[in-house]
């Protein structure tokens, strides 16, 4: 990985974003990123692209740059922080400000990104819906249905709803057919009876 041409360096930047570089390579990319305006612009653009792919709501509606400038101005007025030298100095005594594990996945938790075929392309409107399919387990019977098992399960089983909202969902009838066929015939599962069969029988009609 060298800085000879901007394409290969952008490719390194892309890999750095994904955490796929070694410690040394990361350091080099970061060094360049901090001084090269074009590299920073690429970082910004790639981050926006990633965000928008996960949710159209994340498209910036005002200048991200303006926000950053304002912030940097503010930070320049902060008292100089004591420099912590060396890698990874995380004092053990500090309070960990962490949320339960399951909330730490911004990618998986983002609302479904509806990515529609543009109008005018073909008769069978084909919608590609990508993203996490989490659903709500708010239990009217009160507090954590899995409360009893808490000590045994390592993560807090709080799952939150992501509704299939944000726009009408166009279904592909052919895909529906295949999914039905899969459910009808593909029940070669140890959990088929009763749960699997009942699940398929109950769920087939949903959304029609």
């Amino acid at each position: 990985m060298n800085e000879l041409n901007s394409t290969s360096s952008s490719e390194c930047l892309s890999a750095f974003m994904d955490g796929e570089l070694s410690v040394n390579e990361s350091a080099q990319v970061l060094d360049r990123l901090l001084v090269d305006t074009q590299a920073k612009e690429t970082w910004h653009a790639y981050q926006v692209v990633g965000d928008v792919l996960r949710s159209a709501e994340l498209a910036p509606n005002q200048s991200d740059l303006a926000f950053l400038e304002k912030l940097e101005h503010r930070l320049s007025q902060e008292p100089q922080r004591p420099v912590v030298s060396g890698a990874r100095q995380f004092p053990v005594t500090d309070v960990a400000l962490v949320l339960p594990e399951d909330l730490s996945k911004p990618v998986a938790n983002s609302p479904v990104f509806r990515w529609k075929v543009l109008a005018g392309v073909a008769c069978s409107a084909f919608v590609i819906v990508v993203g996490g399919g989490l659903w709500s387990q708010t239990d009217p019977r009160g507090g954590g249905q899995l409360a009893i098992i808490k000590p045994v399960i390592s993560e807090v089983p709080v799952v939150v709803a992501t509704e299939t909202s944000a726009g009408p969902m166009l279904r592909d009838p052919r895909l529906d057919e295949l999914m039905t066929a899969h459910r009808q015939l593909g029940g070669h599962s140890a959990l088929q009876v009763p749960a699997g069969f009942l699940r398929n029988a109950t769920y087939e009609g949903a959304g029609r």
Partner: protein
Amino acid sequence: MTQMLRKWLVIFTAFCTCAWQPAIAEVPLNAWLMRVHQAARQSVYTGTFVVSAGGNMASARIWHVCDGAQQLERVETLSGTPRAIFRRNDQVITFFPQSKIAIAEVRDSLGLFPSLLKSSDSAIGDFYRLKALGNERIAGFDADVFQLVPNDRLRYGYRVWNEKKSGLIIQLQTLDLDGKVLEQAAFSELQLDAAVNVGKLSKAGNTDGYRVLRPDLLKTTADAQGWMLQKEVEGFKPMACYQRPAASSAAGLAMNGHSTMQWMFSDGVATVSLFVEVYDPQRHLRESLTDMGGATHTQTRRIDAWWVTVVGEVPPATLTTFAHALERKK
């Protein structure tokens, strides 16, 4: 990577402990599966079943009875298109009261278990392990809670609530690779050993007044159709293969108008179907990966003159692996 074959000796009332050393909180998987399965066959129950997946919910009323050697079951949907499904063992009739059409079919897969488990090829334990999580009260019953943990990232995990006495599954959650619930199927209300009128339930299979359609389904093999998997997807074995001719006589059934091969795989718990049809540029617009909400994903791919759709309750990457492993025999 070759799969290790393990011989499981499973006997109905006891299990052979010599073949397996239980770890802390781990439970012998096959014995558990047998119990779960037996419970479903032999229990008499009625209740309301609710399925939640990706923000959608669907529910149905269920009646189930075991009448000697035969199992009778009726499912009446409470949401979506009105339907009633009547099952006698592996024969299934789906009634559509609005159109007065009934679709009668035999679902092989329903007859497979428990022979699936008894066979020496059964290696579910190679890909999942079972953990006991404790117990909880649910839908008015005491239940044991288990977690079926996948050994790799090619498949999803599950959390299962078994009614304590019978072993009947009251609730089943499908968990994604991070342990989050993708979908849930459960009895919101259940009566076990309820007095179900067997005679009345049998009559639910009566098709008077309905036009009965039978799907055109030819049992075949992928090999005969000219297809193979260049590389096995770990744990997933081929289960069956069907060909549906183009001119399907059953209205409202899948494959209307398009001849399609359905090649089915399973690892014993999760299932995947590979659908192959002739590529049609008018209809087959774009390769994609979709998530309809819940555990089921689909992926499409073009292979030369064919169009492949992969469907399964597995992580998307597994579907992609299938899609790329399928190839024409040479």
